[in-house]
């Protein structure tokens, strides 16, 4: 098992290198003038187009540009992200904790509700709870997140004035940027506990509720459907009948025997979901004005901020590899017949 994990981890740099090479190559299909649009945003600056292309060496051949970038990378420098207005490494460190916090905060409800509701609707097929889960799945899956987000914001912030957008309130903002607050992790909730400021924790918590509900409602739909169909397949199998016949209680049959076997596709999906949320949830972040990594990634892509795009892709590919690795390890845990070699 350990050898398996190490081997997979050793592959990580290769995957990352492949990703950057591919992206760099694809971006070369854009003309230097197109790539200069990152620096030229106004007709007043048009006359300087050629000078900008020269300055940022946008006309150099692909291997030269890639070589320069790679050399820079080996020196530990990922380049400067024009859209974030800071070096790429710093941008990742700045934006990722917020997204990580949001992902953690919404992923566990997604997982618990998804698996529980999926199981229940399979066991009580076509009964009330199944219909409820079907309704939730259809609405959750077809409801665009900006609609749900805005409706929630209008009710809980606009009308009830309870749960505001953003990541923290003005008071917290002033405190965490003062000398009385030390930022250890970048995760607001963790830092507030470490600083023993419970009201900051409560403030951060309040700001996480709505984006989490939005993410939860939208992402739980798929998980419920997958769990349900996978469970349905399992509970009709012979071993379940045997378990029942030997007099095991229904909860043991369902929760221990059938569900454990039904979890494989659920694990695959969950790991993908988690990585997806970690890679940024642009619309939710935009609606709730939440400073996550997704908005930066999209901005960088839209404005052709090449160091930004590549930095973001690197992070995402690493997350993806790690997510898959975790899923593979979990397969072996829930189904001991799977041996990792």
């Amino acid at each position, binding site marked *: 098992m350990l050898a398996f994990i190490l081997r997979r981890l050793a592959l990580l740099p290769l995957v990352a290198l492949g990703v950057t090479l591919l992206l760099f190559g694809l971006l070369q299909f854009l003309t230097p003038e*197109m790539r200069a649009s990152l620096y030229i945003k*106004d007709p*007043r600056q048009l006359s300087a187009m050629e000078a900008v292309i020269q300055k940022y060496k946008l006309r150099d051949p692909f291997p030269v540009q890639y070589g320069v970038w790679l050399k820079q990378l080996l020196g530990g420098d990922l380049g400067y992200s024009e859209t974030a*207005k800071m070096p790429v490494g710093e941008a990742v460190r700045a934006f990722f904790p917020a997204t990580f916090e949001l992902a953690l905060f919404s992923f566990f409800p997604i997982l618990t509700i998804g698996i529980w509701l999926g199981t229940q609707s399979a066991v009580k097929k076509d009964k009330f709870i199944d219909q409820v889960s079907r309704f939730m799945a259809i609405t959750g899956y077809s409801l665009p997140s900006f609609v749900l987000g805005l409706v929630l914001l209008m009710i809980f912030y606009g009308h009830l004035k309870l749960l505001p957008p953003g990541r923290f309130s003005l008071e917290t903002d002033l405190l965490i940027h003062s000398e009385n607050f030390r930022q250890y992790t970048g995760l607001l909730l963790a830092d507030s506990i470490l600083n023993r400021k419970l009201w900051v924790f409560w403030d951060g918590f309040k700001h996480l509720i709505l984006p989490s509900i939005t993410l939860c409602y939208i992402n739980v739909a798929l998980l419920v459907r997958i769990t349900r169909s996978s469970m349905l397949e399992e509970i009709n199998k012979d071993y379940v009948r045997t378990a029942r016949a030997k007099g095991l209680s229904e909860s043991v049959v369902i929760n221990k025997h059938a569900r454990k076997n039904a979890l494989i596709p659920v694990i695959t999906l969950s790991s993908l979901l988690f990585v997806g949320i970690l890679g940024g949830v642009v619309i939710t972040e935009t609606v709730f004005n939440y400073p996550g990594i997704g908005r930066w990634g999209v901005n960088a892509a839209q404005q052709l901020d090449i160091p930004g795009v590549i930095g973001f892709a690197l992070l995402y590919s690493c997350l993806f590899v790690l997510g898959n690795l975790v899923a593979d390890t979990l397969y072996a845990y829930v189904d001991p017949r799977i041996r990792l070699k």
Partner: protein
Amino acid sequence: MKIGDKFIEVKRVAKQVDKFTFRKFLCIILSAYHLIILPYAWSQVKNPDTYTYLTISDVDSMDPAWSYDTASHLQILNVYEPLLAYKGSSTEELEPLIATKIPTPANGLISKDSLTYTFPIRKGVVFHDGTPLTPEDVKYGLMRFMLQDRDAGPSSLLLEPILGYPATRDEKGKINEAVFKDADRAIQVKGDNVVVHLKRPYAPFLTILAQWGVVVSKKWAAANGDWDGTEATWEKYNNPKKESAPFFDKMNGTGPFLLERWDKKNKEIVLLRNDHYWRKPARLKRVITKGVDEFATRKLMLQAGDADAIYADRPVFPQVQNLEGVQIIDELPTMEMNPTPFFTFHIDTTANPDIGSGKLDGNGIPPDFFSDKDIRKGFAHAFDYSSFIQDVQRGKGTRATGCIPRSLPGHNPKQKWYDYDLKKAQEHFKKAWKGEVWKKGFQFTLTFNSGNVPRQTLCQIIKRNVESINPKFKIDVRPVQWSTFLDRMNTSKLPMFVLGWNADFPDPHNFAFPFMHSKGNFPGLQKYKNPQADRLVEDSIKEVIPAKRKAIYAKLLQLEYEDAPHLVLVDTVRYRTQRNWIKGWYHNPVFPDSPYGSYFYPIYKE
């Protein structure tokens, strides 16, 4: 008694409560909430000494010599100070700021030949770091602005009037070594005065200084690793990397606010009151400018009182009307010509699908299609100006009569412009290309940058009206990404393109040159050249007597009408959305990001 019995007992008692009394009670509570608590909550000024402005724009750099965008200059306006400023809402009248007098020929501070300007420098002004301001700092600020000269930056705005050339490097990027000596000679410290010698008379010089010539501390710059002001080192700081300058994210000015922090992660800039300001300190303690991309979120935050002013443009106007506690101030003049459709006189044909066959055969257009005046006039008559103002501007704004907007001198409200008249359009199209166009028709692509709704509507109006004149006329409207748009426009591949222009400084020259001079921003792309227009623009800049200048601009606008190298559509007005507890705000179209952003000094909440 068991718990179940207790529950039944409670239920029985509850049933006995008189329903009528209960309803009455509920009514009283609700009315009290609506009559007492809610109005109280609405009338309460939230965070009375903090002003929060929500915008969509990102700051590029805090460096006054680097930034060329409104979001950055909004912060610069409130932290740094120039020698002179605009008085109140005026775009013409100036008042002294770091200088103690406005130079005029009458007070002798402008020489008779209009070439030498003397600025007496105010004493007792200190920078935010505590160092006193000296005339040497004024000189350094102007020198740094010119000599930094980054690509696509604003340096030419001062280089041109003071040194007479627009750049510190040649086309190949080689530095002109004489620049330092020229600048050092042109700007001199004499006692408590700073004297600036111009290369040639330059009418808008003071208005440019009031907008761009801010004072920075030489000592602070050198101590923080920027240029030390000497000839030996200036080339090292020419065309630098943006983030390498300390001025990029630190600010040390003399203005009413100082930079507390620029939180790039949360897209937030916090300014703190300068309690040692040389005038009376501002009434606001903190000013927060926050990036919130989504309009609905901005609106909700304004309604909740968490924001005091927000960016809201014309299309969302109905959504901000009649909001409780929110005030709208409309009909605010601007200094812009936006949007404007331009014709390309010589289109580049290499790999260019936008001109179809590239011939006048009904399936394309020849590269010099728009060089025929009648084609351009046909388009000018085919445009429905009133519908455009109605649909896109919601009826606000007036028809433009030339490239100089109403808010500036040189604008001529009586200047003729083309009417929407399809018959006249038809006559011109029939005359164009010796009748060939009418006989064979044409086809080309009209491009705009995607996501820009007013420009899209404009293109659709052109398409609809021109195609209705002759079934053989075909125009394809195509949205493209800004990067693609820029690339194709820069190589003169777009037959016709739509762009806008916002002024750098409040002077008609800032419109006459980019719109009409063959070396200007747009004619350069269009390949439009009229020697007469060039001459008029050049004459106007040298003329310092306002009446004579106005006469030159009148001629230029007439020429613009006859040539129609572009279409002028509307003199845009904007509106401001703010909480009604905001007091002291005033509009000046010169302020960057105006009327959404503002000069925060006079503002207070009450």
